[in-house]
């Protein structure tokens, strides 16, 4: 065996190199922990979280026209839309809308298929509940939108 590898073996060079890597990473700049819930994470704009329905900001009416494209697009068939046709203007409007979040896999196919950009997956991820009753969202809850939780500790 040649001299250099033998010396490296005797003087434990490889072990000391490993020790120096772990020693260096103790520097405070290297820490990456985010102390949730005191520090909230940064969420991207395209994040697919809790669904919500958009409302026309001027008139307050829902943007949904009852077409049912989202219900057709959903792989889990968890959206049910009922609609009616206005006898005067001959336009369809939505009468009821339910979204079952318990089986949702947040794939985003509903928001992609919506022609009016009404249903969208917002950036809310804190959706924990104590029972299954709150998991079927109706139109009112969807239009209210995400409610960020304030933690006491």
């Amino acid at each position, binding site marked *: 065996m040649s001299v250099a590898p033998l010396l490296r073996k005797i003087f434990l060079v490889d*072990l000391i190199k*490993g*020790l120096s*890597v*772990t*020693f260096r*990473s*103790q520097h405070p700049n*290297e*820490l*990456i*922990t985010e*102390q949730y819930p*005191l520090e909230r994470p940064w969420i991207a704009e395209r994040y697919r979280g809790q669904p919500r329905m958009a409302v026309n900001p001027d008139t307050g009416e829902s943007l949904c026209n009852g077409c049912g494209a989202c219900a057709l697009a959903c792989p889990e068939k968890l959206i049910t839309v009922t609609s009616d046709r206005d006898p005067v203007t001959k336009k369809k409007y939505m009468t009821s809308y339910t979204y079952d979040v318990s089986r949702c896999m947040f794939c985003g196919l509903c928001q992609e298929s919506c022609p009016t950009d009404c249903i969208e997956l917002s950036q809310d991820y804190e959706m924990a509940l104590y029972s299954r009753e709150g998991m079927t969202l109706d139109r009112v809850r969807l239009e209210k939108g995400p409610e960020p939780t304030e*933690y*006491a*500790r």
Partner: protein
Amino acid sequence: MRPFLDYLHSNVTPGEYGSYLWAVIYILIIFAVASVAVMLMTWLERKILAHMQVRLGPMRVGPHGLLQPIADALKLLTKEDILPDEADKMVFWFAPVWVMMIAFLNYVVLPFGRTHAVTDMNIGILFVLGVSSLSVLGVIMAGWSSNSHYPLMGALRSSAQMVSYEVAMGLAIVSAVLMTSLNSTGTGTLSMIGIVEAQKAAGRWYIFSMFPLGLIAFLIFAIAMIAETNRAPFDLPEAESELVAGFHTEYSGFRWSLFFLAEYAAMIGISSVAVTLWLGGYLRPFPNLLSGHSWDLAFSLFPGLVFTGMALMCLIGAARMPKIPQMKVQTIGLWLFGAVIALIAAVLFLPGVRERVQDIFWFAAKVAVFMYLYIWYRGTFPRYRFDQLMNLGWKVLLPISLAVLILTALVGIRQDLSTVLMGVLR
């Protein structure tokens, strides 16, 4: 009453003074301090390991997780005590008791200072060696009485590992003891305080004498010490990824915590032995070279300065805490903690306390370095497989320690001969 308090003016250990009562008081103090140290070790391990893994560790229980050991202790005390049906109940109960007893028995002879030891047995190091071998019995008892093959395999492996590394450890100790006899009278000593005084008389720590023999003997002891306490990289018997938890698989709650604490106590005990034998024990740096009143004063200010530094860190950290209502309790806690440490620092600056505490401080500092090394190794190295572990113990460490012993003896004879010749010629 007077003879009782007279001890405080004397300059010897309770064993030499002959007072049983003071010995008991010393034992209680050492036990309390060791228990606190062990609890502190659990917190330190989690924090330091976390920082090496670029994360923070416990942060929520107290300020920076300082109350985490208390939370852990409460949890373990209130856990259900599971006793396996087919287990041998008497032995099952006794195994953690035995291991804990043996781990703390080491502390009787450890020299925390020139006069700060329970007793200074004249066979001190032999006592330590014998006692640490007894802990193997506890491990085997735990594994056998659990009546299940995971703990049995773990216990047999652990005991085989501990026994093999004790041989190398013993030989390394012998070469250190041999160096105590290389003085003018030619007689060595086995007593722990005697070994430290011999290092003081020789003028250098044994790790530096007969370079590189002292260093190699120290390294052999350091490696064997890690294998004795079943810590990484030799922790296969308790490797989670393979045998669940080795010999303490079936133990839960308080019994498991006894094993856990005994492991840390054994770590501190055996590091103290290493510090005594090679790193000059309770001696301050350069006792002979930098001697004299002013140097003594400068070195005796060290403990106070260290505690002041720690207090400043706590107080500055408390000032930098986020000022939100959720963090109020933690911030107050950190201010109080900083205040307590500042108080201890102030006490350590008092002249009466300064001299007495110096020895203990330097001893504790050296042992703390070893504890950091233990945690550092755990964070860095992978685990040895069992046959590779035994290979290392028998085929590498044992021959090297034998060679070091023989070479130390030869060098010692040469030194002795040259001294004798010098004496004859003169």
